[in-house]
């Protein structure tokens, strides 16, 4: 009963503990974390990789999903702000909905900030994986809404950066609105006499 998801399917969670070379493994005992993860509810397989985000690491996820019929994936590595898109894409390639991924941040929020407290960091890492697995168990597949994009762009500020960005996009065929606060475009560069490194005029 406990190992069924909301849809009544058997929960099959795979945990991928990443060492991130020495970045995580230098502080956190990844073997211990992996062993601990094996005992978590719903977890059917645990992997311990050197670099989960690398090509071999991602292949291992795909293989793991395939061989173990996984329907939830927990990657215990770095910040989701770093690699959530990477691993979501991996899940999609393996035929899983990308929203069935959960990450535990063992690097930015653990190994890198508790470098002198290895045991406590390892205990924290276990908790973070436990929390991620708990959340993963109740994750649901989601469909993303697709909306059309207006084929026009706004550039705010008509200095050299704005003028260049506007020209580049206009050359690519888009209609551009360039909004400039002052009565003329040109910005600060227009007031400069000569410019380095070419030593020629600004306008």
């Amino acid at each position, binding site marked *: 009963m406990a190992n069924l998801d909301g849809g009544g399917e058997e929960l099959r969670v795979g945990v991928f503990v990443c060492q991130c070379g020495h970045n995580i493994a230098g502080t956190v005992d990844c073997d211990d974390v992996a062993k601990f993860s094996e005992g978590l509810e719903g977890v059917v397989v645990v992997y311990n990789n050197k670099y989960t985000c690398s090509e071999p690491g991602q292949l291992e996820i795909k293989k793991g999903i395939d061989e173990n019929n996984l329907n939830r994936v927990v990657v215990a590595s770095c910040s989701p702000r770093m690699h959530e898109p990477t691993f979501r894409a991996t899940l999609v390639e393996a035929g899983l909905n990308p929203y069935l991924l959960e990450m535990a941040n063992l690097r930015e929020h653990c190994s890198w900030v508790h470098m002198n407290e290895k045991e406590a960091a390892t205990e924290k890492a276990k908790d973070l994986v436990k929390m991620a697995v708990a959340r993963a168990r109740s994750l649901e597949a989601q469909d993303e809404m697709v909306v059309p994009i207006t084929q026009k*762009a706004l550039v705010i500020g008509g200095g050299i950066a704005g003028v260049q960005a506007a020209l580049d996009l206009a050359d690519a065929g888009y209609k551009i609105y360039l909004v400039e606060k002052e009565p003329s475009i040109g910005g600060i560069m227009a007031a400069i006499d000569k410019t380095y490194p070419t030593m020629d005029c600004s306008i």
Partner: protein
Amino acid sequence: MAYSEVENVAGYVGNFTVTVRKKARYVDVKECTACGDCIDVCPVTAPDEFEEGLSTRKAIYQPFPQAVPSAFVLNIDECLGNNPIACGKCLEVCDKDCIDYDDKDKLVDIDVGTIIVTTGMAVYDPTELDEFGYTRYENVITSMEFERLINSGGPTQGHLIRLTDLKEPKTVAFIQCVGSRSENKGNPYCSNICCMNTVKDCLLIKDHYPDVKLKVFYIDIRAFGKGFEDLFQRSKEKGAVYIRGIPGEIEEDPETKSLKLYVENTTEGGTECHEADMVILSVGVHPREDSSAIQKLLTLQRSQDGFFLEAHPKLKPVDAATQGVFFAGCAEGPKDIKDSVTQAGAAAARANRLMMQGKVSVEAITSTIIPELCKACGICVNVCPYHAISCDTEAKTPATVVEAACSGCGACSAECPFGAITMKHFTDKQIESQIDAMLEVDPQDKVLAFACNWCSYSGGDLAGTNRFQYPPNVRLIRTMCSGRVDKKFVLRAFARGAPIVLLSGCHFADCHYINAVHWTQRRVEKLWDQLEKKGIRPDRLQLEWISAAEGQKFATVMRAVEELRQKVTPEEVEHTKRVLKDVLEPPKKDPAKGKPAESESAASGVAV
């Protein structure tokens, strides 16, 4: 759209509606040929901003000869034409009849898919640095003023002269890092461009006036870019003398108006006095004062130096955290022209990459109403910062969400008193299972911190990349916005034995969801009251605003909450668990009052 400002931005990636204020110019841009007849008759003179106030312009003017659009503008505050009886001369002489004193601002709505922010920077005003005497001594000028003096189109037709006697200086001194790299006044960071600008200025002066002596007072010369070292060496070959040390004081000779610079030469040791006829302060740059307006409109973030914060310092250097918004140029940080152009190309490519696909998928983290539970009270309508929820409170029909307009902050879900709103991918059950898992074993040793994705969680990431160490007792639960953190989550954590709970979100100005963070504050204030009434120390619930740029603050807060945790006694925790027992096992509902709770939200929903 020159002489215009962005007034409002609504919508989301791919579908922004932007309101632009086209300021009244009082001159028809299309008709004006910039003939200049109006200038000849205008009786008003004012300092010319483009010339750094070194010359004057009229009330009707062209900002500079190459201005685009090539049309005049009338400063109505200076113009006497406000009262046509007093003046009206420009109107009389304008053949094209393109001056209109009654011109009004116009608001225009435009639809765009992407936005590039290139709002630039402002130049440092060194008046506050009393030791250099800028504005007290006329022959102390800024590097921007020098640009106008040496420019052949400038007020002196390119003749470098002293402002006191209009004579060519024989010795010119440059002072570097003015307003930069200082913890006291000005800014702590390096402004990037000033070293090479001075190298360039030295070469310019030597080209025009080979006999002028040049002395450059510096901390370090940062000639790090391609071809920069060559220019630096060339300036030395041409005779510029570089002296390591920033003058501590400048004195003016009351008669000659020449200047004495007292400096500690840190290469050779010892204090020196150097004389110069003119001093050029190589001023740094800082964020524009009006950055906060754009920041609010586009829900952007800024780094500690005040420039706009990129989504990732290495891998997304021109992306804003707000999808579909990009940065280029000095708005993101001080940089030179080449880097601005490079970044502009990158921003254009990133915008193109989005737009060329024609469509974009929106992350499935939006809110959903459970119609059976909705009582049509209308609270969520007022909570939503995006006006994405509508509800007919009179007809008592359940609320509805426009999914495309919802950004997924979750404030509605947390504020709904009936548990009738769930958030995709951030459901109550998902968050509660994290709380339960964390506090299952040894809760007394742990601090539970809720952190918003955009600011506090990122601040935690920054603490990590910077290796700021803090105690390992804290565990973070990430929500998109702190506004998502329901009261029941906090109470659940306490009921599970958490000694300390921290709620952490964006500073009000940084809130990624316009103003959803206000709801966080209101909720926490209410919670403090409730905790106190229940005999629970309110300071066991902490509230902190930590931005994505505040890694140091994140670590400091983590240390502080751990200190607080150590002061929480086991008796307190046991008392709290007893008092909040009902949070975990809600008392059975009276069957007469409605059907038994079916959904997960209702089951875990606790009215407090």
